[in-house]
């Protein structure tokens, strides 16, 4: 291995040995064409890796959608696909669960309350799995669901556009 060394004399040689582990080896010079070729190859590898990951995620999301379809039926699932929201009827009030990261709206008689609740590992889970988990939780144990969710204030019902599922 070649190291950069500009000093002269025994003192520098001693420090050269002492600091050997910290001295940056000189990189071999490569031509611009070679650099471009290596860069293109690296980019291609990265893209292939990302495409494979995306394919895995798409497959997982499709599996989650199959389960949700099985649970709610075609009519409600069509609304979910179009709006990204699922209306869940709790024992006390209704909830709109969004596909995007744990945002839930609790629809009360005269107001809509924003809740935040999600799977602990939501970043690695298909989004529809999160919707399924919240739907089952809200239906099975509404009290615990509301206790666990964080509340983010409320908005007037008139200002909030209720999707088709909630109006029907």
């Amino acid at each position, binding site marked *: 291995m070649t190291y950069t060394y500009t000093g002269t004399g025994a003192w520098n040689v001693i420090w050269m040995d002492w600091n050997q582990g910290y001295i940056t080896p000189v990189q071999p010079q490569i031509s611009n064409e070679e650099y471009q070729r290596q860069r293109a190859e690296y980019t291609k590898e990265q893209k292939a890796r990302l495409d494979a990951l995306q394919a*895995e995620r798409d*497959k*997982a*999301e*499709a*599996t*989650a959608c*199959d*389960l949700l379809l*099985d*649970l*709610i*039926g075609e009519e*409600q699932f069509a609304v979910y696909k179009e709006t990204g929201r699922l209306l869940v009827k709790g024992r006390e009030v209704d909830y709109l669960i969004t596909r995007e*990261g*744990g945002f839930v709206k609790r629809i009360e008689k005269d107001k809509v309350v924003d809740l*935040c*609740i*999600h*799977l*602990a*590992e939501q970043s*690695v*889970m*298909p989004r529809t*799995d999160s919707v*399924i*988990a*919240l*739907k*089952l*939780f809200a*239906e*099975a*144990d509404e009290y615990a669901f509301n206790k*666990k*969710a*964080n509340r983010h204030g409320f908005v007037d019902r008139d200002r909030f556009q209720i999707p088709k599922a909630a109006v029907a």
Partner: protein
Amino acid sequence: MGELRVLDRTGDTKLIWDTDKQDEVDAAEAMFNKLTKKGYLAYTVEKGGKKGEQVKKFDPELEKIILSPVVVGG
């Protein structure tokens, strides 16, 4: 015939058991117990969009059980 669906990063993992085959029932029960100890919530659901109910103990007679990972407030 029962079905256990565990929500995970692949969408879900399915485990099917036949109530006449004790080894299949035992495998499903072992998975149920292992995951509920980790904090997973178990729900029983019926086809046709009926509301799910939480289950605390494995019952091989149930048609479908869904195990959901831990839910937290955001």
